[in-house]
């Protein structure tokens, strides 16, 4: 008697499971065919940092004050700058980021008094070389076309 009941309840469980699974089967697929398709990154997505441009002068906003360097918990940032003739503030000459240690916490961005850095939306960053150990953000900044 007990065995019969167990078989019955087992079959019922199975049928219920099958029914629910089958119902899911006919739902529309939501798979995104990465890498042929990608989803848009949200506004606040935290990729590695980059230098921001002053929309008026086209130069980097960074004044090499080194506050971000000090705020970073993982010591990933190295900044240097020079004082150019006729300018009130320093301009950045070197901005190196060791992205392999960056935890994308945003402390640097929050620390910056001139709003000179921002997160990128890059995420396809797998690499077989040491590229990200020493990213030259000033060079990257120069290579980027000015946005109008």
């Amino acid at each position: 008697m007990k065995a019969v009941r167990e078989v019955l309840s087992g079959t019922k469980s199975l049928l219920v499971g099958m029914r629910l699974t089958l119902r899911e089967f006919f739902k529309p697929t939501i798979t995104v065919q990465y890498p042929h398709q990608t989803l848009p990154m949200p506004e606040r997505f935290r990729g590695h940092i980059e230098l921001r441009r002053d929309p008026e002068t086209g130069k980097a906003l960074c004044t090499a004050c080194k506050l971000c360097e000090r705020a970073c918990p993982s010591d990933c940032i190295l900044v240097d700058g020079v004082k150019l003739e006729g300018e009130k503030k320093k301009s950045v000459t070197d901005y190196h980021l060791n992205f392999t240690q960056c935890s994308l916490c945003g402390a640097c961005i929050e620390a910056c008094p001139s709003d000179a850095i921002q997160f990128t939306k890059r995420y396809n960053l797998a690499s077989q070389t040491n590229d990200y150990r020493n990213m030259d953000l000033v060079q990257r900044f120069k290579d980027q076309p000015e946005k109008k």
Partner: protein
Amino acid sequence: MIAPKESTAGTPSNETFTLNLGPQHPATHGVLRVKLTMDGEYITRAEPVPGYIHRMHEKMGENRTWAQYLPNTSRVDYLSAMTYTHAYVGAVERALKLEVPLRAEFIRVITSELNRISSHLVGWGAFVMDLGGFTPILYAFDDREKILDLLEAVTGSRLTYCYYRFGGVVADVDTAFLEGCKAFVKHMRPRLDFYRALVTDNIILRKRLEGIGMVSAEMCRRYGACGPVLRGSDVAYDVRKNEPYSIYNQFDFDIPHYPQGDSMARYNVRMDEIEQSLRIIDQAVAKIPEGPIMGKVPRVLKLPVGDFCYATEAARGRLLVRVSSDGKDTPYRVRLRTPCFCNLSLFEEASKGMLLPDAIAFMGSLDLVIPDIDR
């Protein structure tokens, strides 16, 4: 059916052998090693050997400023990062007597509860996968994805949020997020019924969990076990109710608890907690006030000399952060009392005489996160 009660484990023959479960075993969810002394299929001794993913999070606190420790907090239990950051900022806020604006507290509650649901969904999916049912984890991840999308839009990150700051939260939420929360609550309730029909009522699951992995309230007390493990042993202890922090006392929710003390009870506690978290989110989204999201915070943080504690209910139990300050701008000591460490401690005693597959199920019901044990 073989009843574990009739095991020969009490009188081990001299033919025991040692079996390593982990550190690379899928059922140990990461890198936990359990040294099993087996008598046939029965466990005579299960000795957990943690330490394979030790990253010195407590020590790291001593060589960085108070604010620089924030990213660490989301990397201890990476599945419920919000509650960990909450405990740490709470301890510092308590020391500095900082006021947190009401809107920020609401945001904290909403994001913490979302995080709890996503954590339970992973726990649920992985647990069922340990038992051999692969499909449910895909459903769980589908629903969890909705939470991650919501949180990503607000925090910029999908797992290690680092979203709370001393005195508030770093970025405000928008109406899209609040609408998204409402839509999620609406979506999730029928999904819970679906989960119940598909998995909870399934006879195979019940046979594998009911009456297995008995943990008594007394054992929980001896080992300091907490969270769903404790509540599965009929102790309705939840930090959110018993020592309310933040604004949890403004919400109406229950503490699910089950008297059986077996794996099924712990499973049921988690499923019911998802329901309760949805209730909290529902109320919080309806009541969230307008206002600032950051209180007044001094530019350079220097804590007064002393010890400061703050406990939160993380997804896996009571998390206590204790910070000691000697008046400098770095902590003197950061201590994390994490739930999984205590929950793992009782494994050795409770798994004595169990069949190996039952022990795997039992371990799954403890819902361990290994970085939380090692930290």
